[in-house]
């Protein structure tokens, strides 16, 4: 019984995270300014990282944890680089 509840809850959370990723993609597509697009990309990678963690919970392997950690690190670096690019027009000066 509790296993069935866990399975249903994880499926529901994956559907919610996928819908969140679609909404972020909409914001990247439409976003009036470049800042909105960077913000949408940031939220998109956070949702993808959480989706990785729920995949790990569903399949009961800790393999997905490393993938989530790598997504978190690279997403942070990417967003900081994009913010610096918006600020100065170049990433490394």
């Amino acid at each position, binding site marked *: 019984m*509790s*296993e069935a*509840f*866990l399975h*249903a*809850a*994880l499926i*529901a*959370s*994956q559907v*919610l*995270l996928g*819908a*969140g*990723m679609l*909404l*972020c993609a*909409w*914001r990247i597509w439409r976003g009036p*300014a*470049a*800042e*909105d697009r*960077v*913000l*949408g990309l*940031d*939220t998109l990678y*956070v*949702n993808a*990282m*959480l989706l990785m*963690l*729920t995949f*790990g*919970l569903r399949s*009961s392997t*800790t393999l997905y*944890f490393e993938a*989530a*950690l790598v997504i*978190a*690190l690279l997403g*942070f670096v990417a*967003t*900081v680089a994009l*913010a*610096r690019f*918006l*600020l100065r027009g170049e990433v490394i000066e």
Partner: protein
Amino acid sequence: MSYAVGLLALAGALLAFGGALGLVRLKTFYERVHPPTMATTLGTALIATAFILHFGTAHALLIGVFMALTTPVTYVLLVGAARRRRRS
């Protein structure tokens, strides 16, 4: 135990979805900066807690702490860049 894991994961996913929904619904850029922080701090913390409870190892604490530390840095830089661009 698996009830707690399922409820924590569901609550975290709901917060992440709410953050994405706010990103689409709100009108100006400065309003839109707020909702994703809900997903990046509390949503990540809840799902990482579910991960820790399910596997019994404290690895996922690393992701929660890392996201809680890096989100403010990212958004301060992003809003600073947006302000500079609006002014010029």
